[in-house]
């Protein structure tokens, strides 16, 4: 079952396909440059039978400064799924819209716009509120957004809590004099 | 010794002798540590003496009928000649043997006497010495024979 390898051989000449990962028999991931992505998607849909867009999502690699879009395509005839990765610049994330190819793509793009701040020029209702309403922070799914800190700052937490670390507690109770405040030994 | 008081005086005297024995040994000891130990033995004997004094004054009763465990530790240990550089182990053996000897003495006296009151007194004193012996035996067991 090397549908994936065949396929990549077939498209490999025209597209710069890299990082091919055959995760399991019916699932393959690969990466393609941003400028070739939509053209390849169209070809996969129209010529290779990958007619079903399962979803479109994004992965945040904050340490590498990139977003990786993942288009998950499924071929009902061969029952094979392809995950197509496209790297975007994290600071200026923009991608060609595919709302003309799949109807639900517009919704996914709205979500990515709201949750990561990725722009898809031309996608309908892109800037309408999707899940959030009155959001005044950076897009929440970006890794630098700390949801716990935000929740604490805006929604507060009920008083009357407070916990002790068993180890520290036992230290205070059982051997309070045994402390090394000045660094010594080791480092 | 025909009265309870006389018996008690005798016993008190014996405790005093024991205390003197340990303190004279301590005087000769060279190291701080054994000196301390021997003095504490001496103090222990003085405490026994004080206890007997309060019995004599009627503040306290000696119980003759309680069971005191005999660990028999001293039975199979050798006799030690006390010297100035005595070790803790040997000092404890000396103490155990002394208490055992005292116990024997009072027990024998109790056996030879007919007066029930005096008999009772001797038995009480014997019990008291047995307790002292147990104390030293337990210490020997704990401190010296840790690993045995």
């Amino acid at each position, binding site marked *: 079952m090397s549908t994936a390898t065949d396929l990549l051989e077939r498209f490999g000449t025209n597209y710069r396909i890299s990082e091919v990962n055959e995760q399991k028999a019916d699932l393959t991931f690969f990466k393609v440059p941003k400028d070739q992505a939509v053209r390849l998607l169209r070809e996969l849909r129209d010529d290779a039978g990958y007619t079903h867009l399962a979803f479109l999502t994004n992965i945040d690699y904050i340490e590498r400064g990139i977003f990786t879009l993942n288009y998950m395509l499924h071929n009902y005839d061969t029952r094979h799924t392809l995950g197509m990765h496209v790297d975007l610049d994290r600071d200026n994330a923009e991608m060609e819209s595919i709302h003309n190819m799949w109807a639900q793509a517009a919704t996914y793009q709205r979500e990515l716009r709201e949750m990561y701040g990725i722009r898809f020029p031309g996608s309908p209702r892109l800037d309408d509120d999707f899940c959030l309403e009155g959001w*005044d922070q950076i897009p929440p799914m970006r890794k630098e957004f700390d949801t716990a800190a935000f929740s604490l700052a805006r929604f507060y937490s*009920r008083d009357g809590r407070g916990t002790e670390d068993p180890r520290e507690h036992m230290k205070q109770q059982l051997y309070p004099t045994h402390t090394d405040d000045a660094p010594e030994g080791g480092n | 010794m025909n009265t309870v008081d006389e018996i008690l005086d005798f016993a008190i005297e014996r405790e005093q002798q024991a205390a003197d024995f340990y303190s004279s040994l301590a005087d000769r000891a060279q190291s701080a540590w054994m000196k301390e130990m021997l003095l504490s033995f001496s103090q222990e004997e003085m405490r026994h003496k004080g206890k007997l004094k309060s019995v004599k004054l009627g503040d306290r009763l000696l119980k003759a009928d309680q069971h005191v465990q005999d660990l028999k530790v001293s039975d199979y240990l050798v006799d030690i000649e006390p010297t100035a550089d005595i070790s803790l182990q040997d000092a404890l053996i000396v103490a155990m043997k002394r208490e055992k000897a005292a116990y024997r003495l009072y027990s024998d006296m109790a056996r030879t006497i007919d007066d029930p009151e005096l008999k009772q007194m001797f038995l009480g004193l014997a019990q008291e010495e047995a307790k002292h012996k147990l104390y030293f035996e337990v210490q020997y067991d704990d401190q010296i024979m840790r690993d045995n």
Partner: protein
Amino acid sequence: MKDMDKSFKKDTETEFPLREEMRPHQVTAPDGQVIDIDPLQDYFCQEPPKVHAKSYFKIVEDFYNWARAHSLWILGFGTGCGAIEMRPLMTPRFDAYRYGIQWRPTPRQANLLVISGYLSVKTLKRAIRAYEQMPAPKYVVGLGSCTINGGMYWDSYNTINKFDEFLPVDLYITGCMPRPEVLMAGVLELKKKIKEGRADGANRYVENFEWYKANQKRVIKNWNMPDYNW
């Protein structure tokens, strides 16, 4: 709070614009007459809320409370997970109707708002509107842990933690999710409270109106509605 990065800003003229139909506009009637409409002014009553006074006679008030306790009409607005356990109560097995409880589709007909679980900020806004539209005396029950201290969504950026900061709550039911029986027990407890005349949430809301509004506006950033819409 962090400044919003320019590139994330949505391509809109202001930060939180009014919806198109909420802006002042003109409508041409079928007869050709042109009518100016300012929805925020025209669609809502601007009157501030009033304290619902007790009856002068205690016996009358007691009678009212007895009657109120026996007709708790729940607004059929499930805000979170807990809504799914409210449905069995409407079915023969639990049959809440025998206790005078029924579900109504509109706030105008309801006097009990059950906040069934977590409240996203977006839903909170609707819940406040629904609550304000309910006729007094009205009651609020917080169902599930989420209404008490955030529950399992304590660190979510979109759900509130302490519901009692936003609306006056008469009763809390813990659980995640609570069984229908507990909701039933809660409602019976509420009845007791109403009969004793202690369920005065609506009046508390009026008395601390400023505080509630401030809390509400602190988390609802695109307020764009009148302060009190009933």
